[in-house]
């Protein structure tokens, strides 16, 4: 492996962070196309959704990073690089917080839906170390989005969150997910989606300040409703 690194440095291709796989523009294009097709064919390939996000995010990610840089809280996040993982979270403390607080509701969400923040894919194909963190932060904050929007992890809930994220981040992967996700839903659900949920998600997304600029780890005690108001997310229907 050391030999590989030496050769790569010679060619100007460096590993910028652990897990980084440098790729040529052609490879990125092929990856984007391939991962998009694969994600549609096999919805359980979450790794393909992740790859799609990384290979198509070249415009949206710097945009997000700049939004973070120009915001005091966002700037601190970029400096301190907090990670949301089971090992860094004090689950028992969060569980002990009062009902309605961010921490308590987040833990409730994780337990009800049987998900864990540790299953997020680490970035591989982002060619900038800071942008790799930005996309990692976006992934780790996804569950908090569910909590703030009050959406479960079923197909319908995920699509709603994707619409919100698409408006907020501009990531092509979110846009594609939001557009193609509903394909697998029943007509009844599609109706609810189209008439109530999506318009609300879009309005909230547009009205809200950048969700990546919130230092969630310092706001576990804050009531969810107050945080919603502060960010600008309208109450869920």
């Amino acid at each position, binding site marked *: 492996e050391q030999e590989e690194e030496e050769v790569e440095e010679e060619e100007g291709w460096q590993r910028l962070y652990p897990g980084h*796989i440098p790729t*040529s523009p*052609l*490879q990125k294009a*092929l*990856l984007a196309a*391939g*991962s998009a*097709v*694969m994600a549609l064919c096999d919805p359980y*390939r979450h*790794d*393909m959704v992740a*790859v799609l996000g990384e290979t198509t995010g070249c415009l949206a990610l710097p945009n997000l990073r700049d939004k973070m840089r120009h915001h005091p809280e966002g700037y601190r996040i970029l400096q301190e690089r907090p990670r949301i993982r089971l090992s860094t979270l004090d689950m028992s403390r969060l569980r002990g917080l009062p009902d309605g607080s961010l921490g308590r509701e987040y833990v409730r969400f994780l337990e009800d839906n049987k998900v864990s923040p540790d299953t997020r894919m680490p970035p*591989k194909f982002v060619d900038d170390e800071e942008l790799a963190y930005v996309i990692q932060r976006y992934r780790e904050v996804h569950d908090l989005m569910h909590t703030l929007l009050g959406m479960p992890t079923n197909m319908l809930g995920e699509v709603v969150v994707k619409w919100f994220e698409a408006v907020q981040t501009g990531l092509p992967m979110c846009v594609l997910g939001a557009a193609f996700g509903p394909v697998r839903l029943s007509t009844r659900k599609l109706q609810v989606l189209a008439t109530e949920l999506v318009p609300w998600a879009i309005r909230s997304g547009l009205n809200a300040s950048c969700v990546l600029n919130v230092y969630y780890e310092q706001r576990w005690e804050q009531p969810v409703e107050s945080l919603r108001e502060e960010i600008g997310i309208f109450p869920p229907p």
Partner: protein
Amino acid sequence: VYQVFESVAKKYDVMNDSMTLGIHRVWKDILVHKMNPTPGTVLLDVAGGTGDIAFRFINYVRSVRERQLQRKLKNHQSLSWQEIFESYQKDKFNSLGDSQVVVCDINREMLKVGKQKAQHLGYSEGLSWVLGNAEELPFDDDKFDVYTIAFGIRNVTRIDMALQEAYRVLKPGGRFLCLEFSHVSNPVLSRLYDLYSFQVIPVLGEVIAGDWKSYQYLVESIRQFPPQEELKAMIEDAGFFKVDYENLNFGIVAIHSGFKL
């Protein structure tokens, strides 16, 4: 190398089809046709994991055997139908004509996939699955009529040892056959081939198998492998005679052959 194939085992066949656009099947067919085995041949297929060569060998031998039986019957048209029927019973248990193939692989996962495939495709007799290392085969001397290694030898750390082992376990008169990626001398094709290998194959690995690194390793190991003439010399060094090679697809793949005399 072991870990690479552990993760690769289940998607091995799908990946082979995608990477070579199905052409690997033709290459393997050509190998077995070149072998031209007769019923009664005992084959050792090393690094044969998922059984591609073994199944082709069995199919080939079966069809040769069928033709043999048909010819025999034609010569026996004077027999009563009672006697013809009895000869069927005898030969039914011999559709392979005592041919056997031993599939040997260092990786348990690959063997497992191979066994499942065999069951799925209906191959039962004449097949044995053995765990073993090409550099140190668990077999006695002078045991096999043919030794094949298809797309396996480039993963062996000490190729010379694998060749010596091949020589050892072959019977006198036995044949060594190696199917492997080799070097393309044509400069135009070589560049296209490199482009395809380095740009497309790892992407295929990531999209289909979720594994970029194993397929990056694959492409690099192909480049590191000795070219046709060098491999020929190595095979001669192990004691084989009449060593020759045949390029397939301009050298993307080559079949090397040698005899133990």
